C-alpha cells in the first residue's frame, strides 16, 4: 500500500513535470500574419509577437495581439515602412516562461528583427533575458515589473537592459499611485492587502503599495496571500474583516479580483477596494453592488479624445467587439513605438538582424519624444519606462467609468 502510493506520487510528479516543460514541443502552431504582398519587390520586415492567447489570462493576450495587428494592418495598408510590408510572426506562449523562451528561439530561427511581447510579467522577464544577450530590440505592451528593463530590480545601479522597452506603467508606479489616491482622495488611514503569492506582478504592486503607505502614514493592518488557482479567499478575508481597514488593495487579475470582492462582502469587509490595471473587465466577474465604489488605475481612458474614439471604432470594425480592456490600446501603442523606431533604422539603409540595425532601432526608441499614442503621449525615462499619467477607473452601477487622470 505504502509502496504503491509512493510510486503513484513519483509517477504523478514526473508526469506533471513533463506536462509543464515538455508541452512546449507541442506548442500551438504560430500564425504568420502578413497582409498584402509580403514578398513584393520592397521585401518585408519580420517582427515577432509573443502573447498568451490560450491560457487563463488569454483575455490580455488576445487583446494585445488584436491591438498590435490593428496597427500593423493599418501601416501595411498605407504602404508599410520604407516601402516594405511588415510581416508579423505570432506564437502563443501560454503565459508560461518556459514556453515563451521556446517560442522566442523559434522566432529567432524564423528571422525576426524585433520582438513585441510578452504580455504577462513572468513571460516577458524570461524573454528579456534572451533578447538582452543578442541585443535584439523588444517592447512589451503590458509587463509591469521593474525587472523587465532593470537588470537587478533590487539594485538600480546594476544597469538596465538597453534593448527592452515597455508601453505601460511599472508595478511600483501603480502601487504608489493607489496608495497616494487612498490617502489624498479617500482619506484612508488603515489599509489591508491581499495578493497572489509567487506572481511577480501581484507581489511587485503589493511591495510598492506597502512602502508608499508607510511613507504616507497609512497603517497596513493585514497582508494576506493566496496561491495561483485558489478560489476560496474567505479565510484570508476574515482576517482582513477583523481589522476593519479603510481600503483593501487587491493587485491581482480580474477573475480572482471578482471572487475576492464577492467573498469579502460576504465575510463583512466594508472597506473600499483598490486595484491595479489587472482589474480591467472585472465588472463581468462580480455583482454591481459588491463592486460599487471600487477604484483601479489603468493606462487607458476610454472615449477621452478623438484619437481614442477613432481607435475604438476601428477596433470594433476589425474584430466585431468593443475594446475588452486596456491591453488592446497598449498593444496598439507598443506596435506603434516599435515601427516608429524601425523606420529610423530602415531609413539608414541598414540590414535587418544585424547589430547595427538593432542598435539603430534601440537608439530611435530611446529618443522617442511626443509620440501620440492611444494611452498617452510617449517619451521614455532613463530606465526605458514611459512617462505618462494614470487613468483612474471607478466601478459605478456595474460599469467601469473613467473619472480622472491622477
Amino acid at each position, binding site marked *: *500500500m505504502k509502496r504503491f502510493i509512493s510510486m503513484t506520487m513519483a509517477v504523478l510528479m514526473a508526469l506533471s513535470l513533463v506536462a509543464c516543460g515538455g508541452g512546449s514541443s507541442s506548442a500551438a502552431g504560430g500564425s504568420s500574419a502578413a497582409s498584402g504582398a509580403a514578398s513584393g519587390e520592397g521585401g518585408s520586415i519580420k517582427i515577432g509577437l509573443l502573447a498568451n492567447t490560450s491560457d487563463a489570462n488569454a483575455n490580455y493576450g488576445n487583446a494585445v495581439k488584436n491591438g498590435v495587428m490593428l496597427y500593423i494592418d493599418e501601416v501595411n495598408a498605407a504602404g508599410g515602412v520604407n516601402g516594405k510590408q511588415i510581416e508579423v510572426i505570432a506564437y502563443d506562449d501560454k503565459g508560461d516562461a518556459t514556453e515563451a523562451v521556446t517560442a522566442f528561439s523559434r522566432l529567432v530561427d524564423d528571422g525576426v528583427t524585433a520582438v513585441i511581447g510578452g504580455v504577462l510579467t513572468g513571460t516577458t522577464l524570461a524573454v528579456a533575458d534572451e533578447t538582452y544577450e543578442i541585443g535584439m530590440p523588444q517592447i512589451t505592451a503590458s509587463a509591469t515589473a521593474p525587472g523587465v528593463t532593470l537588470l537587478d530590480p533590487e539594485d538600480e545601479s546594476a544597469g538596465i537592459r538597453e534593448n527592452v522597452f515597455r508601453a505601460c506603467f511599472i508595478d511600483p508606479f501603480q502601487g504608489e499611485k493607489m496608495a497616494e489616491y487612498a490617502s489624498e482622495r479617500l482619506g484612508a488611514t488603515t489599509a489591508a492587502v491581499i495578493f497572489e503569492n509567487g506572481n511577480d506582478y501581484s507581489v511587485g504592486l503589493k511591495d510598492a503599495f506597502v512602502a508608499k503607505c508607510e511613507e504616507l502614514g497609512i497603517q497596513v493592518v493585514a497582508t494576506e496571500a493566496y496561491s495561483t488557482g485558489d478560489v476560496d479567499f474567505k479565510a484570508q478575508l476574515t482576517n482582513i474583516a477583523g481589522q476593519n481597514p479603510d481600503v483593501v488593495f487587491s493587485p491581482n487579475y480580474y477573475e480572482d479580483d471578482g*471572487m475576492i470582492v464577492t467573498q469579502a462582502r460576504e465575510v463583512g469587509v466594508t472597506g473600499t477596494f483598490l486595484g491595479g490595471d489587472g482589474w480591467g473587465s472585472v465588472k463581468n466577474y462580480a455583482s454591481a453592488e459588491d463592486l460599487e465604489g471600487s477604484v483601479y488605475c489603468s493606462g487607458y481612458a476610454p472615449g477621452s479624445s478623438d484619437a481614442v474614439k477613432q481607435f475604438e471604432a476601428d477596433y470594433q470594425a476589425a474584430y466585431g467587439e468593443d475594446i475588452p480592456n486596456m491591453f488592446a490600446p497598449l498593444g496598439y501603442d507598443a506596435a506603434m513605438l516599435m515601427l516608429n523606431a524601425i523606420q529610423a533604422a530602415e531609413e539608414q539603409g541598414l540590414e535587418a538582424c544585424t547589430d547595427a540595425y538593432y542598435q539603430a532601432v534601440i537608439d530611435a526608441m530611446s529618443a522617442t519624444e511626443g509620440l501620440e499614442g492611444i494611452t498617452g503621449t510617449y517619451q521614455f525615462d532613463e530606465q526605458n519606462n514611459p512617462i505618462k499619467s494614470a487613468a483612474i477607473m471607478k466601478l459605478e452601477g456595474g460599469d467601469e467609468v473613467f473619472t480622472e487622470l491622477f
Partner: protein
Amino acid sequence: MSLLSTIVSQVINGLQSGSIYALVALGYSMVYGIILLLNFAHGDIIMVGAYAAWMCMVNFHLHPVASILVAVLASTLLGVIIEKVAYTPLRSAPRLSLLITAIGVSFLLENGAQLIFGAGAKDMSEPMALFTTGPSITLGSSTLSFPAILTIVVSLIAMAALTFLVQKTKLGKAMRAVSEDMGAAQLMGISLNATISFTFMLGSALAGIGAILYLCAYPQVSPTMGSMLGLKAFVAAVLGGIGSIPGAMVGGFVIGLAEALVSAVGLSVWKDGVVFAILIVVLLVKPSGLLGRSTTEKV
C-alpha cells in the same frame, strides 16, 4: 470583530471548503476501494459537470433546477463512458498503466474543455443566485451563509446515503465483495462489469453534485478548476484512509479546516504547503490513513 468570532468564522470557512473536498474525496475513495485505481480524472469530471450547468443556464436558459439535474447526469454519463473506453480494456494490465491512463484522461478533458469553451473563466454568479441566496444563521457576529449551510448539509446527506448504500443494500454488498476479491466475487455470480460501472456512476454523480456545490460557493467555471481541487481531495482521501467512506469525509474536513486555520494565524502564504506537507507526513507515518484498514503486504 472579536477574537472569538474571528475564530468561529474561520472554522465555518474551513467547514465549507472542507465539505467540498470531502465530497470529491468520496468519489476518489470509492473507485480506489473497488479497483485500486486512483482516478485522477475525477477532478476534471467536476469541471465538465460545471460546464454542463453553465451551458444549460446561460446558453439554453433552462431552469436552474433542471440545469443541475442535467449537470449531474452529464458527469455520471461521462464517468461511465471514461470507465468503458479507457479503464475496462486495461483491467488486467498492471495498475500503473491504469494510473497513467487516468492522468491522460485528465489532460484530455482539461485541454478539450479549453478548446471548446476557451481558456478564460465564465462567471456564473447570476444564474446560480437561486442557490446562493437564502436564509443564513448568525452566530454572534459571524454568519453561516446559505451556500455554506447547503454545502455542509448536502455533503453530510451524501455521505449518509452512500454509507447506507454500501452497507445495507445488495448492490453495496456486491461492491464490497468485488473490492474484497474480484475472482471470488465473480464465481459467486456477481457481475464484475455491472458492479464496477455502478461504482463509477456513483462516484461521478457525486462529482456532479460536487460541481454544483462548488459553483454555489465559487461561481466561476474554468478548464483547470478541477485540477487543484482534485489534488487536495486526493490528499484528503489519503489522510482519511483511501478506500474508506467516513475516512474521506473526515479527511476532507481536516484539510479544509487546516487551510482556514493556517490562514487565520496569518500564514496564508504557506496554505498549500501545509496541505501537501500533511500528505507527506501521512505517507511517512501512517500510510493507511486515519480510518483506513492497515494491510500487510504478502511477501
